[in-house]
């Protein structure tokens, strides 16, 4: 049976979600009474701001968080939903989870649906871990008989065997997460809707949780997975839906969509070109362009590719200058610095437009966002610097096995290993 012949499990047709901006501000009862009385007397509504009454249609602007969303998911498909903040991912998730209703369109689902927007929802601090397993299970729609049957397994999975009869208020936040995930992992829905709950807990526990996710995908469960973690999306999902500005920008096979998504994102940030008027700089030089690109061409910065940086500047002085590049990670920590004076010690650039390049070796950066600060120095003294001139995102190849979270560390070097038998 090919994938296309599997029955539809989720069908989303023309779904839109509108939020009314402005109308929810009127929360005082007296305002409503005034507005109502005014309408009755045929007078203008005193609660509407002056000027707004010209066009009654404009009172309360509409904001469509989602519009024209249609997609289908078949049985045992694992579909990822990606997009930037504000793209409508979380609204989509809320609609699929039945927390809020769409303004238009219909969502149909078949079978038992479980939705995990967070773990440990509804834990009561005064109740024991064991009591909370029953409570949380019931909240997630697990019948008591099912919890009874699985309680030992759940406790073992959480690893909180000794403290299971202690009130949850004495638990550390890590323990609560583990208990919450242990319950969630033992749900057996036909459709599973997951937010990035995977990025919780310590490494050991993450490995266990991801293994469980993997199993459920492998056992023919339908999974909708909303995530920022491209490694997890690329490893788990067969198909990806890319959302942008509340609409579906693209959907299709994972590699195709993730590639386009990353390329689109990087296009905006990997190149900066300045005109003569607004070029940053001073009497020493002006920066005219900075460009960062994978050495193999294309738009996606793979971990296995070297990365080229190109800097163009107008040099005004005849003195020797140096150009330096600071590499920062997403948290703003400087990973390392490299400069022209050390790279090409004898070089004295002439005046006028000059272009210098440097290449970061492959197998260097850990996956994630990186930024470059570009500076110019005259005779060893800093002259000017452009903060975060360009930015790019490094991804690693899909991994096998169950561990998809970001590896720890700022760098991810290819370290050679050797082995000899010491018998």
């Amino acid at each position, binding site marked *: 049976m090919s994938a296309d012949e599997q029955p539809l499990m989720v069908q989303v047709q023309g779904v839109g979600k509108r939020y009314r901006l402005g109308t929810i501000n009127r929360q005082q009862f007296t305002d409503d009474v005034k507005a109502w009385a005014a309408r009755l007397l045929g007078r203008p509504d005193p609660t509407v701001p002056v000027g707004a009454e010209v066009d009654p249609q404009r009172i309360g602007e509409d904001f469509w968080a989602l519009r024209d969303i249609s997609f289908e998911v078949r049985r045992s498909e694992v579909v990822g939903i990606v997009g930037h903040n504000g793209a409508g991912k979380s609204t989509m998730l809320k609609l699929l989870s039945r927390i809020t209703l769409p303004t238009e369109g219909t969502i149909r689902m078949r079978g038992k649906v479980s939705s995990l927007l967070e773990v440990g929802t509804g834990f009561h601090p*005064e109740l024991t871990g064991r009591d909370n397993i029953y409570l949380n299970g019931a909240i997630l729609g697990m019948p*008591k008989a099912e919890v009874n049957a699985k309680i030992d397994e759940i406790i073992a999975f959480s690893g909180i065997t000794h403290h299971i009869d202690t009130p949850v208020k004495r638990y550390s936040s890590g323990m609560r997460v583990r208990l919450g995930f242990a319950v969630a992992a033992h749900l057996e829905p036909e459709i599973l809707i997951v937010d990035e709950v995977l990025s919780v807990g310590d490494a050991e526990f993450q490995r266990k949780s991801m293994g469980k996710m993997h199993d459920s995908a492998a056992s023919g469960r339908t999974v909708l997975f909303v995530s920022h973690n491209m490694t997890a999306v690329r490893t788990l999902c067969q198909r990806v839906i890319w959302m942008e500005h509340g609409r579906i920008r693209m959907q299709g096979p994972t590699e195709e969509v993730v590639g386009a998504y990353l390329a689109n994102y990087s296009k905006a940030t990997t190149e900066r070109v300045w005109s003569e008027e607004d070029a940053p700089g001073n009497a020493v030089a002006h920066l005219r362009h900075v460009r960062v690109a994978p050495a193999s061409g294309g738009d996606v910065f793979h971990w296995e590719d070297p990365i080229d940086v190109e800097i163009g500047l107008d040099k005004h002085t005849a003195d020797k200058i140096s150009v330096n590049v600071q590499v920062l990670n997403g948290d703003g920590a400087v990973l390392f610095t490299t400069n022209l004076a050390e790279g090409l010690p004898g070089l004295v650039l002439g005046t006028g437009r000059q272009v210098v390049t440097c290449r970061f070796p492959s197998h260097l950066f850990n996956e994630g966002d990186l930024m470059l600060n570009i500076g110019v120095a005259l005779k060893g003294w800093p002259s000017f610097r452009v903060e975060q001139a360009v930015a790019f995102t490094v991804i690693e190849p899909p991994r096998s096995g169950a561990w998809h979270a970001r590896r720890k560390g700022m760098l991810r070097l290819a370290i050679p290993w050797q082995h000899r038998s010491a018998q």
Partner: protein
Amino acid sequence: MADTSGNEDWNVVIAPDSPWWRLHLGEVWRYRDLFRELVVRDLTATYKQTILGPIWVLIQPLITSIMFAVIFGMVARMALPGIPALLFYMSAIVPWSLFSGVINKTSATLASNAPLMTKVYFPRLIPPLSSMTSTSFTFFVQLALFFVFAAAYRLSGSYAWSPGTALLMLPALILLEMMLAFGTGLIVASLTTRYKDLRFLIGFAVQLLMYMSPVIFPLAKVAPDSPVRPVLEANPLTPVIEGFRGALLGTYMDWSTLWYSLAFGTVVLIAGLALFQRAHRSYADVV
């Protein structure tokens, strides 16, 4: 090929509108385990931190009754002649605390379950239903306490307690009172999503209502030409409270006045359910 299973067996359909009278009671039944867990949570968590624990369920109405017995029985002399003041006050305060408890819990149901409602789907009627149930559990304990006291009075020979056949009205009275309280609570809960001020007003309103009901005085003590009389008679709770007295103590009661309460309760319950349906749908968007 493709989808042979047709369009009918979608078991979850999420669409913008469904009429307010569709309460999805089948869905509520499917989530009965959640209902039970929430009741258990309410009962175990409330008294967990206290020294006396569940004994508070008994102490609270007892202290109030003794207080009223002392203040009104000795100073204002409101009790009916021949009935011990303690029993007289308990017979009304116990049902009154059911009413006020259910109203208070139900009206806070959306606010107190906000963290759940923004994260998980479940039939939204479950939390108000479960908090009503846990509140009524307290009521039944207190009612049992009343019977213990009444029996003690009878055994000691100081008061020949014999409520008679009117006692059979008790289940109907309890249901009627819960209907009134639940409906009103749902209306308040729905309105508080829009008008936050109501949250503060409801406490006062319930208190005021107590003085407008024959809780600390019997209706018989209010003169027919008194200006409060019409207010008391318009109050749908008056027949209920008087009815509890009639059932528990065998005092005079015009049972036909209960029809008015029943009509009022039906309207309030339907209005409450309708408003609540509307309010909880948009709740996750405004919270």
